[in-house]
């Protein structure tokens, strides 16, 4: 006769240590990374972030290939894109990427009613926002810096003095690109998160954010061209990280209407800081009563 068995389906006691807010914030951070990149999700969720990443990185790879090709043809010193110029390309894609990522991070928590689950965990609203913002910052920083790493590493082997000499001589560019990435991050991520905090669907966060940023650019250009309305140049929020980047990379004078309006990088830094602080304040207010 077969022996029977009754399994105890009662749940097992947790005997170990209970971690606190830091562990919960780290869990949110890791979840944010996975969510933005579509990891552990269906292929559809991966399409947008990875396509944008490919669009950002592929030109760098192409330039490296072209540089190698021209060198093989005996043409030395051809540099198709400088790091500073490459930011002008990735800056537009970064705007789109940040908009999508911010919506993907914050909107489902509210739309699926999961905020109340977070609110009944050992987390404060600040911890929640910190975890989510850190996830966004990591991914966006990686997104913007990766093409520069590709450029840097790709140019090294083609250098006449060898990779070691090239890397030693040009290591400073990595600090410059990193700082520039942080500038873009500080300028774009807080307002993108703010839009996402009020949207009911991810697309309703990213679309309006991109639209407002582009409209601000167009509107400020039109107003600044009027001559007496130079102060409106400050409202072109997309321009500020580019100004700071050019300043960091020693490439001034390419500031368009903003430069012609007589503003410099310190003003841009101030505006970025003000916008970021205001957005952070509004975000905390928004999430103080998550239920």
């Amino acid at each position, binding site marked *: 006769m077969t022996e029977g068995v009754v399994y105890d389906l009662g*749940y*097992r006691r*947790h005997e*170990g*240590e209970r971690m*606190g807010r830091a562990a919960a914030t780290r*869990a949110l951070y890791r979840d944010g990374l996975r969510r933005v990149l579509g990891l552990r999700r269906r292929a559809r969720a991966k399409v947008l972030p990875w396509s944008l990443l490919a669009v950002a990185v592929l030109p760098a790879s192409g330039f490296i290939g072209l540089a190698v090709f021209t060198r093989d043809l005996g043409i030395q010193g051809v540099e198709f894109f400088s790091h500073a110029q490459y930011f002008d390309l990735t800056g537009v894609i970064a705007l789109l990427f940040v908009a999508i990522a911010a919506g993907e991070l914050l909107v489902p928590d509210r739309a699926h009613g999961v905020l109340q*689950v977070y609110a009944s965990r050992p987390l404060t609203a600040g911890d929640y926002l910190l975890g989510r913002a850190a996830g966004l910052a990591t991914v966006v920083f990686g997104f913007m810096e990766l093409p520069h790493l590709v450029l840097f590493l790709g140019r090294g082997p083609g250098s006449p003095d060898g990779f070691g000499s090239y890397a030693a001589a040009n290591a400073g560019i990595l600090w410059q690109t990193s700082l520039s990435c942080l500038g873009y991050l500080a300028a774009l991520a807080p307002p993108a998160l703010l839009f996402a905090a009020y949207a009911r669907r991810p697309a309703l966060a990213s679309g309006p954010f991109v639209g407002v940023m582009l409209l601000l650019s167009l509107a400020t250009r039109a107003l600044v061209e009027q001559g007496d309305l130079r102060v409106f140049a400050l409202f072109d929020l997309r321009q500020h990280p580019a100004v700071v980047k050019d300043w960091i990379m020693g490439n001034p004078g390419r500031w368009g209407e903003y430069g012609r309006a007589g503003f410099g990088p310190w003003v841009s830094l101030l505006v970025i800081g003000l916008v970021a602080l205001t957005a952070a304040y509004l975000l905390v207010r928004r999430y103080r009563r998550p*239920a």
Partner: protein
Amino acid sequence: MSAVAAPDSPSPAWAPQPTIEVRAVSKWFGQKVAVSDLTCAFGAGVTGLLGPNGAGKTTLLRMLVGLLSPSDGAVAVLGRDPRRNPAVYRSLAMVPEEDAVYGFQTARQFVRYAATLSGVGTGAVQHAIAAVALEDAADRPISGFSKGMRQRAKVAAALVLDTPVLVLDEPLNGTDPVQRAHLIAAFRRLGAEGRTVVVSSHILAEVERMADRVLAMVDGKLAAAGDVAAIRRAMTDIPFRVRLETDDPHRLAAALVGSAAVTSVAVQGRGLTVETADPAGLGRAVAPLARSLGLRLSLFEPEDLSLESVFRYLVRGR
């Protein structure tokens, strides 16, 4: 913390050695009073929180777990204010009424994430999933789940935290009878382990099956507290109804009409329904009476000792 003290005399609304204390709590949203001057406490075991829609159950539960602040009064969980006190949540788990799940995650991912968020590790994930009988579907996306399966995923995400206090808002919604029986058994087991389990429900039969104690809310106020039979006994203004069956109900009815214990008698088919203020006295009197009349008494059954009857009396006229 409010200065409102626990009731001086023992009160059925105030559990002994409480883990959750609600002292003179009111909550209003604009002009609407959702909870009005409620004082009660919850302790070890399963407490059922009953009430019709709009009675204030969910508002009360949200205050218990710190998702809402009381407009007046105070709530304490294990002696601490749950509002803005993340440390309390190491001892507290909640299953909200709303879905509160990510459709793009699998049930296992969701439960695992809940565990990591509360810093308890993922060792108990499989047990929590098994406790709600969701093993077969654990690796499917929640977006494809039925309402009952989503409910069970939420319950598993609370169970995995292994907390001494569990607050469950309508956890049986959408579950089928087998799943309900499974969940009820799980809640009873948790209560028997000495945990404080607070379950709100409008499904009376299930509350009756799982709760050691019932708090009934009507219009934001506490309408009754205690075990069901005690609540019914306390309703002295409403006579008890007892169903009797005999081979000649008319003769028995005629004899009962003269009894002091009987308020009214109605004959229906082979039986009769007797209203009495003293069902025990009626029980003692009716058998000798039937015997003296030469009648065979085949049924003596109280009709309104069920939670449903009690609840119906509580909300009548509202």
